[in-house]
């Protein structure tokens, strides 16, 4: 199919209207058809191999395509159509059969494409792995203005003919005395032949070398050796066209190979995690089994060797280890139930004091065994909360079991519960070894020990705290950890008494955006962080927690974050350093919400902060703040600038940020293409030098990777760009002089709104 035509309903139909010929039957039916003769592949089941058939698109009507088929298809049945090229990037388009009639060439099938629903347009494009390719690595270099092959042939002919004329003239003048007229003619013809042959050979030499190298490159590609292609220079305009096409093909292969490599890598990582889980689960299963086997064996083999007391002790141990196994199995099943929502949590008004007190006797024998003190600090009655007492008892049991497990013999564990403001606060303290702050981020994750590469010692599968977090969250409560290495650890559970609803009402359009909005929350205070994370998560946002500024920056450097919600005081960085670091990140596509006791919105605004919230912050205010930044981001654009010495990138990006845009600066076109694609940029900005003739292939690639992104080309005094070139890439050309960024910002704003209108 036409390489410039994107296989997408709107493009197909637009193309048909533009170039197709209207059908002579037009007017006899409600729709007009235009013949375009594009070859497509159609199928009634894209998951079945060999179920598709190739067809010529006969016409394109108001909402879809039509084609001839040997098969009759029932009206309203589903048909998928795609580009004939076997290309992984072409996806099946879903359509409904709206017309089927028998004609001379079989059945004429008309397919209407399903109209995308309005919410679809809000969804960010799916992440695809794209490798940055810079122009140096392209196998064929197309530089400058090249002479066409025809012109070169004309040169050779002109030289040969002029040589012949010159010789004839010289011979006629008697240049070689004594030669007859015939002989002179022969000499002139011979000279012309020799010169012509030489010129032809000399002119075609580069073309031959090029074709030979191209041949080698194609063979290399066929053998899967993409990197073995030598860089070759295209010698003439026609071969440059082939060269560009080859570069395109090469880039696609390369991207596909990269995608496959990334996928393999991901699978390997998943495999590694699976192995770790298996290894730890098997460790936790094998240890109690070893004890059980050993003691039962001793009882069976040499019962008489052991005294009655010893035998009783053995049975006790066997019993204990069986319980341990049962608990592990129960934990695994519990996680499975929690995740499949098979657990029903029955919230009834209850006083949790008896539940909390009831946990102590369960653990007393274990505490005594390790000579530990287990104490409780809880009034006889607690304010009523909406809770499932059995589940809360499970939470406390898990926390106490953990505390007893990790605290060395002779230590102390305390359970406490009391009312604090509008919540019931339950805590479990120990004076064990403590948990370093950088581990707090993952401690409530499933299989947290497996995910943490630093864990060298394994004490359990790490499901207990995950279960705790899930149960507490389903109560609308919050759970967090506070700890000091060497001093001890405290786990807190806060259950709301009543009042403030967790779910903040939002419009359906906003709610639809929540799940795709990635938020990183950071705070020095673990309780406030837990509250922020929990509030946002309960409202459907995708939230991750960072307990240190360094972790926050690590997350941001990996990209893929929409909103940062952070305390201005983080434990490991000064406020100014944190703001500088946030502003210094080159891929700034995120928005910042700062909450603090001090400061003013204006001051923070000057430092690139979108929203400032003064503490204390209610749940409502927090969710509203995220809505504000999301709306602001929707109103402003994401702009990618390709850095170049011709433009004042720093000043331009600062002005764009001030105008509300998110700006990313790329070092090369390759990088810009990747950024624009990955973050769904609205506008790409490049300078005149960047679009110089020899980079046409890369610009084309950029257009393909980010087709919805508007392209603004800055025509600089050093590298002027004429509007023709702009039209070729569908770009807007703006005159630019160093230091006059204002005009450009205005154009970018207009282009951005145009791009967004087109997208929707």
């Amino acid at each position: 199919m036409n390489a410039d035509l994107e296989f997408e309903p709107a493009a197909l139909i637009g193309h048909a209207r533009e170039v197709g010929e209207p059908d002579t039957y037009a007017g006899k039916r409600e729709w007009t058809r235009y013949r375009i003769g594009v070859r497509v592949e159609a199928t009634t089941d894209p998951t079945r191999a060999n179920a598709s058939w190739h067809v010529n698109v006969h016409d394109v009507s108001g909402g879809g395509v039509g084609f001839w088929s040997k098969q009759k298809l029932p009206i309203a049945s589903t048909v998928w159509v795609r580009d004939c090229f076997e290309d992984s990037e072409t996806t099946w388009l879903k359509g409904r059969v709206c017309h089927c009639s028998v004609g001379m060439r079989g059945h004429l099938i008309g397919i209407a494409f399903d109209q995308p629903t309005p919410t679809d347009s809000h969804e960010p494009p799916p992440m695809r792995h794209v490798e940055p390719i810079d122009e140096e690595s392209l196998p064929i270099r197309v530089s400058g203005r090249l002479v066409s092959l025809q012109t070169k042939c004309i040169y050779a002919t002109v030289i040969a003919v002029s040589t012949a004329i010159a010789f004839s003239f010289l011979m006629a003048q008697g240049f070689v005395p004594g030669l007859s007229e015939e002989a002179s003619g022969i000499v002139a013809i011979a000279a012309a032949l020799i010169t012509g042959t030489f010129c032809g050979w000399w002119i075609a030499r580069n073309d031959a070398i090029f074709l030979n190298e191209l041949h080698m490159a194609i063979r290399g590609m066929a053998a899967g050796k993409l990197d073995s292609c030598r860089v070759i220079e295209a010698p003439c305009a026609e071969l440059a066209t082939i060269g560009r096409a080859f570069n395109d093909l090469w880039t696609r292969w390369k991207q596909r190979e990269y995608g496959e490599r990334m996928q393999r890598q991901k699978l390997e990582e998943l495999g590694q995690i699976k192995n770790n889980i298996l290894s730890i689960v098997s460790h936790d299963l094998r240890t109690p089994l070893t004890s059980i086997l050993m003691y039962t064996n001793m009882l069976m083999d040499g019962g008489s060797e052991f005294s009655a007391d010893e035998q009783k002790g053995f049975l006790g141990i066997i019993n204990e280890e069986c319980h341990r196994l049962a608990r592990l199995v129960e934990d695994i099943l519990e996680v499975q139930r929690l995740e499949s929502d098979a657990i029903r949590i029955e919230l009834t008004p209850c006083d949790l004091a008896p539940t909390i007190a009831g946990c102590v006797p369960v653990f007393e024998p274990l505490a005594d065994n390790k000579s530990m003190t287990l104490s409780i600090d809880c009034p006889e009655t607690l304010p009523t909360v909406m809770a499932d007492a059995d589940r809360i008892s499970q939470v406390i049991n898990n926390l106490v079991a953990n505390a007893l497990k990790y605290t060395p013999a002779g230590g102390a564990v305390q359970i406490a519960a009391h009312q604090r403001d509008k919540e019931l606060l339950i805590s479990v303290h120990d004076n064990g070894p403590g948990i370093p702050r950088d581990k707090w981020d993952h401690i409530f994750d499933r299989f947290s020990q497996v995910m943490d590469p630093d864990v060298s010692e394994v004490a359990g599968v790490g499901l207990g705290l995950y279960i705790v977090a899930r149960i507490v969250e389903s109560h609308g409560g919050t759970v967090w950890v506070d700890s000091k290495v060497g001093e001890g650890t405290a786990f807190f559970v806060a259950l709301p008494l009543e009042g403030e609803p967790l779910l903040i009402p939002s419009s359906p359009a906003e709610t639809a955006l929540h799940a795709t909005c990635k938020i990183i929350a950071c705070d020095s205070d673990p309780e406030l962080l837990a509250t922020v994370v929990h509030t946002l998560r309960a409202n459907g946002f995708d939230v991750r927690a960072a307990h240190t500024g360094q972790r926050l920056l690590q997350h941001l450097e990996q990209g893929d974050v929409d909103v940062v919600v952070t305390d201005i005081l983080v434990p490991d960085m000064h406020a100014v350093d944190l703001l500088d670091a946030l502003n210094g990140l080159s891929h700034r596509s995120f928005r910042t919400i700062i909450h603090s006791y001090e400061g003013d919105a204006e001051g923070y605004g000057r430092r690139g902060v979108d929203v400032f919230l003064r503490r204390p912050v209610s749940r409502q205010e927090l969710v509203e703040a995220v809505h504000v930044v999301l709306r602001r981001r929707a109103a402003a654009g994401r702009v990618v600038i390709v850095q170049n010495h011709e433009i004042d990138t720093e000043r331009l990006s600062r002005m764009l940020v001030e105008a509300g845009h998110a700006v990313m600066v790329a070092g090369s076109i390759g990088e810009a293409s990747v950024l624009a694609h990955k973050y769904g940029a609205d506008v790409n900005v490049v300078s005149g030098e960047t679009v110089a003739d020899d980079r046409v292939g890369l610009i084309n690639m950029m257009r393909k990777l980010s087709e919805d992104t508007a392209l603004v080309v800055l025509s600089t005094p050093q590298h002027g760009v004429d509007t023709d070139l702009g039209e070729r890439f569908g770009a807007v050309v703006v005159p630019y002089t160093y230091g006059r960024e204002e005009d450009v910002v205005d154009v970018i704003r207009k282009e951005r709104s145009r791009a967004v209108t087109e997208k929707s």
Partner: protein
Amino acid sequence: MKRIVVCDDEPHIVEGLRYLLRSAEREIVVTYSGEEGLRAISAQRPDLLIVDIMMPGMSGLEVVSTLRADPTTRDLPIIILTAKGQASDANMAQEVWGTTVMAKPFQPQELRKLVASTLEIGACPQPESA
């Protein structure tokens, strides 16, 4: 009198081994961590060490490598117990340090036999293929 040091963080396993391996001509020293195990070895000069791999703090492999680096304990016969799913670490220990590896859960009879033969020849019996 032969002396065996047992080192595992699981009290039930340590206690069980003490019963399983006890006999009139053996003294069994039990320890619950790698550090404690090393101290016991340098103080008591045992004839055999039975050590678990996964222990909090110093792991069993660290204990073994420390012992092998010390000329006085270089030839101490060692039996490694492992409950890990993949036995790659343990296999390495077997190849590099000539220790014997027993995967948990093991057959108590087998361990008994292995301990008896090791104490008799004063070294870990090597696999036939080696």
